[in-house]
């Protein structure tokens, strides 16, 4: 991009902000702002992404990612997925003033199955975190089975994602595993089975990373 083109695109963005014609989606996601921040995140992190071709070019997908301390991971995962041209909706935003809406602008959604179902219906990529595992680097953590339910019910493919990196460091490794195709079924047993499958996948990938 030449400096003139860059200046023009910045001017366009500023004009849209002032006129109020930028686009927001029903979950409060601001794609333009998030895209800018994802590009800017290269200054902070250098992310090595593997398995980017596992992300479907269109249609819904559920990303299950690992966390250690769980501070940077959601943002690193979103920045990594941004390179595959799919915005990531990370589950787990509190519905409270200031924090909630700010995170919603960046793609955060409420941790409710109805919320995930509505996103899958319009073909978005939704991410749920595994539980935090600060002690053990190779422990994938547990999955909340309730949050797997919408993907099982709608037959949405599940992408296991392993993240490895130090909280204050620059380098992060993000590995996206092959999609696990869910067959249409539901019930607590199906949830548990899928959760176990995802955990096994992630454990192998954490070993690699």
């Amino acid at each position, binding site marked *: 991009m030449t400096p003139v083109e860059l200046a023009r695109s910045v001017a366009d963005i500023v004009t849209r902000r*002032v*006129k*109020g*014609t*930028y*686009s*927001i*989606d*029903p*979950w*409060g996601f601001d794609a333009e702002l998030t895209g800018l921040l994802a590009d800017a995140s290269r200054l902070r992190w250098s992310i090595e992404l593997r398995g980017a071709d596992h992300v479907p070019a269109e249609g819904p997908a559920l990303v299950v990612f690992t966390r250690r301390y769980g501070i940077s991971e959601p943002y690193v995962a979103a920045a990594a997925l941004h390179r595959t041209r799919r915005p990531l909706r990370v589950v787990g935003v509190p*519905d*409270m*003033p*200031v924090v*909630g*809406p700010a995170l919603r602008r960046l793609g955060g*959604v*409420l941790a*409710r199955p*109805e*919320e995930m179902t*509505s*996103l899958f*219906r*319009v073909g978005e990529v939704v991410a749920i975190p595994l539980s935090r595992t600060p002690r053990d680097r190779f422990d994938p953590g547990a999955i909340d089975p309730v949050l797997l339910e919408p993907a099982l019910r709608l037959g949405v493919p599940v992408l296991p994602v392993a993240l490895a990196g130090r909280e204050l460091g620059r380098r992060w490794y993000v590995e996206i595993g092959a999609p696990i195709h869910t067959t249409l079924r539901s019930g607590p047993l199906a949830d548990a089975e899928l959760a176990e499958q995802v955990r096994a996948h992630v454990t192998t990938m954490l070993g690699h990373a």
Partner: protein
Amino acid sequence: MRVLITGIGGELGTRVAMLLEEEQEVESVLGIDIDPPRRRMRRADYMRVDPLRRQRTIDAVRAFEPSAVLHLGIYEPNARTNAGPALKRTEIGTLATFGALSGLDGLDRIVVRSGIEVYGRRRGAPSFPDETTPPDPTTSFGSALLHVEESALALAESTGVPVTVLRMAPLVGPHFPSPLGRYLRLPVVPVSGVFDPPFSLLHQEDAAHAIVAALHAGHPGIVNVVGHGVVTGLQAARMGRRVALPIFGPAWHSARLVSNLAGAPMPDHVVELLRRGRTADGCRVEETIGFRPAHSTPDVVKHLFEWASVVYLEVEPEAA
């Protein structure tokens, strides 16, 4: 087809009546409401009936013997009357109309206007509910709409007549009396400084065409009718070149007071829309009633502001 329209005195009822007047298969149209239609009717008859007077409503409905009913007698608080009478008219008018219909032969379809206010915006409520999401209203207008829906579905069950419930996004437009429209047209628009949540709107023409489409489709069940896309309060104010004033918490009480004095009273469902947002998934509208809103939510906002507030005419001294 003999069509009864309740609430013909509203902008929506009038427009629907005008669309039906042009259709060959509609033999006659009768509108009842407390206010007369807002345009000149060529074919439709109008009978002045205050919804609060039950017996008059029942007599009017029974005497006309409709084959189709469009129940548009839903009075939004602070649209044409104050909140109290509006909710009361909605409730009593609905009960009287449906009560009169339950004993009628020859009735083959009912279309009811409802709103996405029935979903409510409780903390943790889904942002983008669809028709399967259980309603949980959090405002007086939302509860009134839910009562209307419940009585409509009860009527459908007891009589076997297909009832289409159209849950519409808030209607605003340059000629449309609505508290949200008046509010957004204030010179200074208070918006939520801590949430600035997205909301969806529906164009008045889309609403009228959706009702006519639903009348022809006769699809039983609930359908959301929502303009695609969303805007936030801040965006709407900026699109209308208004000054957006971000406020939070207790400042909303003062904002309501000031906006009331400025001629734009804010009922609780409008405050909720601005503070908590209001959207719904309207993707089923095409497969169920065969119609799709043509205007997006940002279009509706643009249309709202196209109407000039006050035009000052140049006075020539010689002419005066």
